[in-house]
């Protein structure tokens, strides 16, 4: 068994980890076989569970630690870090009409 991969990030988006950001994280994490957890100073959440993530109540500026354990752990962390860096908002592309 390999070592868990860890990475610390800061929540950048204005309204914190609300519904849509959490859904993006959940979707991304679900794509990996490994276990992914997100820890705040006081709580931890299963990144594959949207309710858990919402329960972190992470506002803008909160420091979080991503911990992945198992197959593809390093890739999972990389993907999630990219998501956090990109601001975790759905594309604001307007429909063509």
């Amino acid at each position, binding site marked *: 068994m390999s070592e868990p991969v860890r990475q610390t990030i800061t929540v950048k988006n204005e309204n*914190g980890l609300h519904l849509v950001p959490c859904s*993006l994280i959940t*979707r991304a994490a679900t794509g990996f076989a490994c276990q992914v957890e997100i820890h705040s100073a006081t709580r931890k959440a*299963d990144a594959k*569970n*949207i*309710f858990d993530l*919402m329960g972190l109540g992470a506002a803008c500026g909160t420091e979080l630690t991503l911990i992945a354990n198992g197959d593809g752990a390093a890739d999972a962390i990389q993907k999630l870090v990219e998501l956090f860096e990109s601001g975790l*908002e*759905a594309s604001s592309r307007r429909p063509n009409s």
Partner: protein
Amino acid sequence: MKTKSGIPVSPGVAIGPAMLFGARGFRIPQRFVSVDAVESEIGRFRGALHKVAQAIEENQHVASQRLGEEYAAIFGAHLLMVRDPKLLGEIETLIRSKCFSPEFAASRVFRNYAKAFQNLGNAYLAERATDVFDLEKRVLHALLGEDRPELTHLTESVVILAHNLTPSETAGLDREKVLGFATEVGGRTSHTAILAGALELPAVVGVGGFLADVSAGDIVIIDGYRGEIIIDPDEETLSRYKLVLEQYKSDKQRLAKLTSAEAITTDSVRIQVLGNIEFPQEVEHCMERGADGIGLYRTEFLYLGTNQIPSEEDHYEAYCKVVKACGNHPVVIRTLDLGSDKVPANETEFVSSCDNPALGLRSIRLSLNNLPLFKVQLRAILRAAVYGDVRIMFPLITSLLELRKAKMVLNDVMDDLDEAGIPFKRDVRVGMMVEVPAAALLADQFAPEVDFFSIGTNDLIQYTLAVDRADPSVANLYWAGDPSILRLIRMVVDAGRTHGIPVTVCGQMSSEPRFIPLLVGLGLRHLSVTPIAIPEVKDLIRHLSSSQSEEIARHALTLDIARDVENYLRGEVDRIYPDGSIAE
């Protein structure tokens, strides 16, 4: 038969079968199921969830087509929630181990999550609890089947009885099918009440607990005049109310025929009858009744409806809707009149909290104290003005300095727009409300500096007579017909005439038939009234002559007691317009 009393918030009578909505819109029929039903109940629960997920996918698709991906993403998140294995596991465990009904189990689990979100200590995240409640509603709806249709898709006429209706639910009510409503909670100034008035649905709120006494389908009468609801009425009561309803309908029909007729006196003086509105959708109510335009567009609802301060685009969109719906007719947009009785929950920091808010930081004072807030609104008005005949009106102007300041800010905003190359209309007409006695007394000094006056009688009376009408212990001292009020109105009209600017009356007074001959006689040619009163005011004007009105005004001005003035005016109107029956 049972009668319950509440607060009447929208006049009219509704009679029909009851449709019930409990605290969250649903009543859970049973809490437990028998042990051998557990597996089939779990099957029912999974089927319901599947339906919910399908409906959300549909919403997601529509949202992405019509609104954009960022809106569709909200439904994407909802979808993840209803498919969350942990959530489903918790609900199914409750059904299996405790024999809870799926409705009860789902409701409990969803509410636990909602509560956890509410306790996060972050306002924005706590708001997400609403999303969870929404899901709970959807799941219960799917479980309870098709006999609980959405408020927006009713198949037969009903009277809605609810614990509470949210403003958005109220706004979404199908006016064709919903005859009226009553709620257990709510007050006169709740958004639900305001919307009921705008939708013209008979409504009673704040009845207290009564849902336990009614069953779905019971015949219920809503008396929006007296604030009563009558459950399962006896024959006599029912036939009495049916008569009231018939009378109400026939009056409405008679007046509806007059919509195309101009408001013109028997001696050919044309009176402009305009509408007072609060919401963009009310423009339709005015236009279908033959209004000559919008004489007062109150913009406070933009601030009261949400938890966020409206953006320039929010203002702009609302104004454009109104302006476009009005075509070539004028639209007078009153700038923010917040404060006093109208304070949004999250903006208390803007408003003075002293003991005497009517004399505190409100209205134009608030705007001049919060220039960024004020400028956002002015920018939106100027931009929307491109599409029609928009006029700007400043409320509660008390001194010339205040008026000049407001106009200076308006000029600054024009320069900003000009510099940024944003299209707007520069030559909009700018007017002021005359609702502070100081402004009425100095009307001749204000007149050269504005394009129009609009007399706000509600505040003018409150400030002149020093009476708060909402205070029951002094409400009997509030008289629109007080000689002092008549004299102030005359001063304003005279100043307008001397300086060649139009004067409108837009307070409650102009919606009451007994004051119409007086106002016309004092020289007013513009009346802005509540939409429902438009047909009657026009009809009454068609029965009047201006010379007779002048005679009435002259006599009224000689009377020295408010009660005598009002009795005299009521007698005159009864003589001139004996058919008048709706409002009095």
